[in-house]
């Protein structure tokens, strides 16, 4: 009965949405309203105005910098919420199911992870640092870093992972993305221009250009490293098992 009601409601919603979509302009036309107002300016002047060859990076960090700062604060507050709900791991008592299990992890899995992890890390660093003139950027690089460490943790267990990435180094790094963004924003205020302005007055043209590149790189790196560490921390506090009564003996 409930399922039937839901299906009727879904049919109504679907027909409404399809009706709306039938009236939309062709998908790939250059004349559709989304490409006529501000986009030509972004595409034509994005490089000298935003300071990035990749227009998307320019839009994210410069034209819509506030938006990205809000996003960075969203992921940071997600970490805060997860830790408030699940608690952090206690010192020296962090085990996951892999550590508690008597069955050893397959040799094939550990070997493949051992060999592929450095390559994945290298790719992550490339994505982070080369995101300005090519596809990529801070968030993407951070996600790859986080994913590789999470893979390592799933295969080798939380005890090994916390030994490699000690909480003393990880916990302070969690706020790097927020702090990097805010500090770069306040540099603009200190020079007497608006918040999140990258072109500082009082310097020469060439020097201002270099400083802008440097500031964009700092923000990009901060977003990447901070985002990756936040993903790692969320997963670490989710997969630890020391909250439960362990049935097995711990090796």
């Amino acid at each position: 009965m409930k399922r039937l009601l839901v299906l009727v409601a879904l049919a109504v919603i679907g027909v409404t949405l399809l009706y709306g979509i039938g009236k939309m302009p062709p998908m790939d036309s250059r004349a559709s309203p989304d490409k006529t107002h501000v986009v030509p300016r972004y595409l034509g002047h994005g490089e000298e105005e935003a300071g990035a060859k990749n227009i998307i990076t320019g839009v994210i960090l410069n034209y819509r910098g506030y938006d990205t700062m809000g996003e960075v604060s969203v992921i940071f507050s997600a970490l805060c919420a997860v830790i408030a709900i699940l608690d952090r791991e206690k010192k020296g008592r962090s085990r996951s199911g892999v550590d508690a299990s008597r069955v050893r992890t397959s040799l094939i899995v550990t070997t493949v992870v051992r060999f592929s992890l450095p390559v994945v890390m290298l790719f992550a660093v490339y994505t982070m640092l080369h995101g300005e003139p090519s596809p990529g950027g801070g968030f993407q690089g951070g996600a790859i870093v986080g994913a590789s460490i999470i893979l390592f943790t799933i295969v080798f267990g939380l005890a090994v992972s916390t030994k490699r990435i000690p909480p003393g180094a990880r916990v302070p790094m969690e706020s790097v993305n927020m702090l990097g963004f805010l500090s770069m924003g306040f540099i603009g205020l200190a020079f007497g221009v608006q918040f999140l302005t990258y072109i500082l007055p009082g310097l020469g043209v060439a020097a201002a250009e270099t400083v802008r590149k440097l500031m964009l790189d700092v923000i990009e790196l901060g977003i990447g490293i901070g985002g990756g560490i936040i993903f790692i921390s969320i997963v670490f506090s989710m997969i630890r098992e020391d909250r439960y009564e362990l049935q097995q003996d711990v090796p």
Partner: protein
Amino acid sequence: MNFSRMFHNLNYVVSVLLFLIGLYAVTVKPNLIKKLIGLNIMETSVFLFIVSIGMVESGQAPIVTEGVKTSQMVNPIPQALILTGIVVAVSTTAVALSLCLRLHERYGTLNSDEILASITDVSQLGRPWEEF
């Protein structure tokens, strides 16, 4: 309705279908993890929809390079917006999953109907925040 245009805008139609699949999972499935998966499918359908809006016929990535005219580039704004959207989706999923962990710890099940049935009296809930 203009069916030939709708066939041309196939991405939009597929995103509507994905949205409906996700909504079905969220409303009908009793398992909380399956509800979360449905929520993620809905988010993905919106991402597909918005990124498809920015598409251009035989378009190039919006990166300034030699030999690529700006009129050939796709719209960068939807891509930037969706980058934000993906991060927000990950954040909400993380918080929801940790709430699921807590629920499973307390009730021993992730079936939302069973959880609701086991709460017959609201005053039974006590003061869970004092456990921490």
